[in-house]
């Protein structure tokens, strides 16, 4: 049982108990004691570190706010299922006249939490078994495993171990071992990826999150059908990527799916080639801004851009490292991966891309089901633009950039979007591609998309 006593520094402060109207910020108090009830596995040191801030509270309002904050932090540890707060005047030895005693009633999570799900996707049904062991060693460590077995004999698993470290930057270390299979019929290949990912995440400022990662991945690329393009076939076989990555994330949006205000900046830089036979330097930037113009009317502007460059002639870049563009979740009005170099109907990808989108979201016409089910829906009109092509560094830059600017793709349209929980969104759009190139696969008409990340 973690009981913490405040240091004995009494500051007798006269306050008027006769006052009828109580200003909470006027009630000067001192937190004498904090109890945390219901601990069994969780170690005292992390609890102390978490609740310590509460001792700084000088008046009653601060105590309440601070207690809420501490509660949020305790929840953030991922060790407890529900947390209750009780505030009482302190009693017993060492109690001060204006002293308070704050008690957190917590219930620890079970040692093992598991679940079984069936999933349908990618033309294949699969069974997923998941297991979490929260708070493994009493300091918020977490072991998470997930295994799924598909009808086509594909198996995927992830085992990840997360350990939060102490410190003001809320650093977290995660190690993940994974195997995943994916099929890309638009490019004519399938891929099995097995690897190891070590992630170190920390905040450099309250809203700025950094992730430093090392990833070692063994990728097995093989042709999906016999009719796959020869350019795809040439890239089949095993390859080993060893890369370091830095992700910078600044997310001030009010919610991840269909936000109404705030902006997002995400910058990913990846350097592959520290061992392995794959080498490149890859930059990817995503910017998003949301503005509420009128009540319920949101303007969203998104810009994405990426650039990949080889670092050595001895190291390869596989088709699975390239950028692709097009599809209901990216450049609408085109088939998935339908923009850029194609051969025999297979998208080959390219080393640079940019894509931008301007969306105007409004509620459904006449607002049916307002305040309930109807709030999950939005209508939107949009205009998307982008380009995908190979840009070479060196002397060819001017020519390749010129060609690049000439071949911008553009599409516009409108549609309905539905929010699925806090996770995903579904879109049904009518799209009209305006500018496209001969090798592209434009897809005018109705397009349907479901996913997490949308342009």
């Amino acid at each position, binding site marked *: 049982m973690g009981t913490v006593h405040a240091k004995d520094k009494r500051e007798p402060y006269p306050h008027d108990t006769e006052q009828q109207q109580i200003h909470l910020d006027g009630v000067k108090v001192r937190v004498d004691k904090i109890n945390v009830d219901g601990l069994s596995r969780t170690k005292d040191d992390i609890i102390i570190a978490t609740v310590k801030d509460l001792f700084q509270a000088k008046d009653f309002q601060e105590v309440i706010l601070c207690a809420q904050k501490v509660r949020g932090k305790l929840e953030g540890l991922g060790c407890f299922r529900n947390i209750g707060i009780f505030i009482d005047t302190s009693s017993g030895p060492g109690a001060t006249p204006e002293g308070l005693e704050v008690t957190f009633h917590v219930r620890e999570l079970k040692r*093992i939490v598991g679940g079984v799900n069936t999933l349908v996707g990618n033309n294949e049904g699969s069974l997923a078994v*998941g297991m979490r062991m929260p708070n493994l060693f009493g300091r918020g460590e977490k072991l998470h495993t997930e295994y799924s077995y598909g009808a086509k004999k594909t198996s995927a698993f992830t085992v990840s171990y997360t350990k939060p470290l102490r410190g003001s930057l809320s650093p977290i270390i995660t190690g993940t071992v994974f195997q995943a299979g994916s099929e890309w019929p638009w490019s004519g290949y399938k891929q099995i990826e097995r690897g190891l990912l070590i992630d170190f995440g920390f905040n450099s400022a309250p809203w700025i999150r950094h992730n430093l990662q090392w990833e070692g991945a063994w990728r097995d690329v093989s042709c999906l059908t016999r009719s796959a393009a020869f350019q795809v076939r040439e890239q089949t076989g095993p390859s080993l990527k060893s890369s370091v990555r830095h992700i910078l994330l600044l997310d001030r949006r009010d919610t991840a799916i269909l936000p109404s205000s705030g902006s997002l900046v995400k910058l990913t830089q990846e350097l592959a080639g520290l061992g392995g036979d794959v080498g490149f330097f890859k930059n990817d930037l995503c910017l998003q801004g949301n503005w509420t113009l009128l009540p319920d009317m949101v303007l969203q502007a998104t810009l994405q851009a990426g650039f990949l460059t080889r670092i050595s002639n001895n190291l390869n870049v596989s088709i699975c490292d390239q950028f692709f563009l097009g599809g209901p979740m990216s450049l609408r009005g085109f088939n998935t991966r339908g923009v850029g170099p194609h051969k025999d109907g297979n998208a080959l990808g390219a080393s640079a891309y940019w894509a931008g989108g301007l969306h105007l979201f409004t509620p459904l016409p006449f607002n049916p089901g307002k305040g309930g089910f109807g709030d999950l829906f939005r209508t939107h009109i949009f205009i998307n633009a982008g380009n995908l092509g190979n840009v070479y560094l060196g002397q060819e830059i001017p020519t390749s950039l010129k060609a690049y600017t000439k071949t911008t793709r553009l599409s516009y349209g409108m549609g309905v979007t539905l929010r699925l*929980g*806090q996770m995903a969104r579904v879109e049904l759009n009518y799209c009209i591609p305006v500018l496209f190139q001969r090798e592209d696969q434009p897809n005018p008409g109705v397009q349907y998309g479901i996913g997490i990340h949308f342009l």
Partner: protein
Amino acid sequence: MNRPMEINIWGGDWGLPSVDIYCLEVMAYAKFSGVPLQTCVTNNPFWTPNGRLPVFKHGKQVLSSLPEISAYLKQKNFSADFGLTQKQCADAAAYTQLLKEKLHLALQYVWWLDTKNYTELIRPWYAKALPFPYNYYYPGKYEQEAKKHLEALYDQDDDPLTIESSVYGEAEKCLTVLSVRLGDQEFFFGSHPTSLDATVYAFLAPLLKVPFPSPALQNYLKACTNLVKFVVRITQRYFPYAIQEYEAKKSAESGAQGKSDPESDFPNRRRYQIVAGIFATAAMTGYALSTGLVQMSTKDEVSENSADYKDLFQAAENTED
């Protein structure tokens, strides 16, 4: 020769002395070499040295494959190949490999992997022939072996139709080659049967005689008339009893067809009833025991470890976050 030579085999049916390729091969070879061999239908590969029939026994010698057996018989001065020249021996070796490479997999396919043949004919036949409880084990095991065989040779293809047409295509080529080579001769090397004739007979006779529900490859063989005559010739000359037995069985069946026998509708009915009863009882007892045990002793463990409904929901919620 004080003790008789003996061979344990799979039984025959449909006018075949045995339904198994390797049993037929050894039996035909023994006949061709003039070895007095006692056949013993065991229909049970469980007690054999390497889990397969045939098993050849002579005194303390226990052998199970034709190369071993023919080498042993050669020591005893029995051989079907004494009259062959070196070149003919070489040809025999080449054609034997041709059969193994092209036709063996196709036969496995027809036998175990063609779903219609397997479920309607082969599995019921083996289930009936094998003694209890092996009849629950071996048909499935053989199917798995055939599947493994196919997967190992066609590891890149995943379209079953492509695989099937490729397997049958190879087999048809092989049948054509055999038919050309045999020509108008009585046997492959003239008027006397040899080890090659034994092997060809063993591969072709079941394919020809077994009434497969899905007869694609069989029809191809039937079109090669000289091969059909070859099989019929050997069966009539060396295994007349198999045909007689089959004829007798058929006429008995057609006589008995008028009165429908409930037992024949559902063979081994009583046995299945008993097995089902035992299984149900065991399952129920097991269930009762397991739930009882859980409640009694390891209560704490269970409440910590088992994922109850709340936990499941919580897991689902947490993954959504």
